[in-house]
């Protein structure tokens, strides 16, 4: 059964729900957001990802209306929201601390926003029951926030921010306070709820795994700028900079000198080592310093020399990290570089034949490595 692919960012006729137009935000002399432009589309699950202090939370607070834009403008459905105070925006936020009102019951917390809209009583009741059902909290309606567990509080915060059916829901590190197992379950729950309600979600996180799991597109940020905005797969497979390649997942970065050759580049990286070849459509000019980024799982490792490989290097196993389902081998080349190779442990441990100090061959295909500019 074929599904239509959800890719509004590829369609030039689509009107974005949110537009950042040359937005700059300064706190005194510090520039938190630097001349940033970005389009987010309806029904997207958009992740802002970056280390702390990269400006992702500032972006979110500007969308919610808690921070004013210094320069540029933000549009929501085509309307400049600069002059609109937070209580008049069709945007709701789920806070990192959840910010549940401790003096109100779960029911009253969820009804809080609806009551502000002066809705009739039975309409409020219906909507609250719907939200309680969506987040599986029916049993806890009359408890106070301090009487429920962390995971339940997180769901109350979500229910409360969704109750007003906002055009846009902002989630500030929504799963930060949960332990790993609960976080993974909740990620899928979030995706499920986002799909059911059809709300546009913008999530702020520093956890790249979380961003990759939930988001339709990820924006990697650093020092107030967008480094790359793309689907999780493309962020991972074809990063456009060393920063992104290094920030997302595990990667081998090989520095070398590139020369254009055929449909890619030949890269010499060390004395006595073979020339590596990588296919790319990108043009780095005729020659110069460049980087190759290769994911460890795309490097195959073997004890015997494989036949007919373009990229083939030899080294000795320095370290083995056994993760249960995977093993990562740190292989030291004769020229000193360490290259990581990852294999799935599909066989029982007794059947594996590689160990410390073993001489091994590493190889990868022409398309496995990504050529990046310096």
């Amino acid at each position, binding site marked *: 059964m074929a599904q239509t692919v959800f890719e509004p960012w590829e369609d030039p006729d689509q009107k974005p729900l949110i537009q950042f137009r040359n937005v700059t935000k300064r706190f005194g002399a510090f520039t938190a957001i630097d001349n940033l432009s970005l389009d987010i589309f309806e029904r997207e699950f958009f992740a802002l990802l970056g280390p702390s202090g990269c400006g992702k939370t500032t972006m979110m607070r500007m969308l*919610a*209306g*808690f921070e004013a834009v210094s320069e540029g403008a933000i549009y929501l459905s085509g309307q400049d929201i600069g002059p609109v*105070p*937070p*209580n*008049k925006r069709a*945007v*709701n*936020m789920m*806070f*990192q*601390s959840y*910010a549940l*009102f*401790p*003096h109100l019951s779960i029911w009253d917390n969820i009804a*809080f*926003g609806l009551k*502000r*809209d002066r809705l009739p009583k039975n309409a409020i009741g219906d909507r609250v029951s719907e939200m309680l059902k969506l987040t599986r909290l029916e049993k806890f309606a009359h*408890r*106070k926030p*301090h*009487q*429920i*567990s962390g995971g339940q509080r997180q769901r109350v915060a979500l229910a*409360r*921010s969704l109750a*007003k059916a906002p055009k846009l829901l902002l989630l500030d590190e929504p799963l930060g306070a949960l332990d790993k197992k609960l976080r993974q379950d909740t990620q899928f729950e979030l995706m499920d709820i986002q799909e059911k309600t059809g709300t546009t979600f913008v999530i702020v996180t520093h956890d790249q795994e979380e961003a990759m799991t939930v988001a339709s597109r990820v924006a990697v940020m650093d020092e107030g700028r967008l480094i790359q905005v793309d689907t999780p797969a493309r962020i991972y497979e074809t990063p456009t900079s060393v920063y992104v390649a290094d920030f997302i997942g595990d990667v081998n970065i090989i520095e070398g000198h590139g020369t254009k050759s055929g449909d890619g580049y030949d890269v010499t990286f060390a004395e006595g080592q073979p020339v590596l070849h990588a296919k790319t459509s990108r043009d780095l000019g005729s020659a110069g310093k460049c980087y190759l980024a290769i994911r460890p799982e795309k490097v195959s490792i073997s004890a015997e020399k494989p036949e007919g490989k373009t990229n083939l290097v030899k080294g000795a196993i320095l370290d083995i990290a056994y993760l249960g389902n995977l093993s990562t081998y740190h292989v030291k080349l004769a020229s000193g570089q360490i290259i990581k190779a990852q294999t799935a442990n599909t066989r029982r441990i007794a059947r594996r034949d590689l160990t410390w100090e073993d001489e091994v061959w590493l190889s990868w295909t022409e398309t496995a490595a990504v050529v990046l500019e310096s």
Partner: protein
Amino acid sequence: MRRFTWFNATSLTLGFAFLYIPMIILIIYSFNASKLVTVWAGFSTRWYGELLQNEAFLSAAWVTIKVAVASSTIATVLGTMAAYILIRGGRFWGRTLFSGMIYAPLVMPEVITGLSLLLLFIGIGLDRGILTIVLAHTTFSMCFVSVVVSSRLVNFDRSLEEAALDLGCSPFEAFRLVTLPIIAPAVISGWLLAFTLSLDDLVIASFTAGPSATTLPIKIFSSIRLGVSPEINALSTILIVIVTIGVITASLVSKRASLRMQAEERAAVRN
């Protein structure tokens, strides 16, 4: 590791004796039948009866309560507003000066506060009476309220207010529906503090009271100068009893509240 030793027992006895012997003597002598304060002439409740007939004392007590309720209420409203703007107002122009000026009356000698208020009231031609005492008490107890409330607001999670704004509250609604209910205990204890301060203030009240209104502390102090009457012992005993009941009730209520909270949290963990 509780050990009863003679040393512990002696310290305990001496400490409590130091604190409470004066009050115990006062209570005992309030039941003295004799008119002479220092001579014991048998048990009697006669002075309690006479106290209830004493118009001057009763009207002073009534004035004191009216002043305390009015001034502590006004001081709570003003003090809470001042605390809120100091903690939440960000870095507005003159903030440091403003916060310094709010807390200055805490360390200002009462005589000076009283004198300056007296000069002000004479200057603007305000007749001294209940109104002037209320104004004076509001002035000096407001800073106590703002200290109590601002120490609570410092620990208040700002995102609760932001959440209220986000869900459609105006800034005033956010204060009324979220901030105020949560800081209510601090506001109430601020009110109680202001009430107590007003109740036993002698210095400032004697500067600002007029012939039309006298508070109980002034009345007691001025009648002492004519000799200690057993009626005053009776009155003081009543005050001690009222204060004791108040303190015990307040601590019982807060203890029960915290016990209930703990029980609820235990129940939540079990679920």
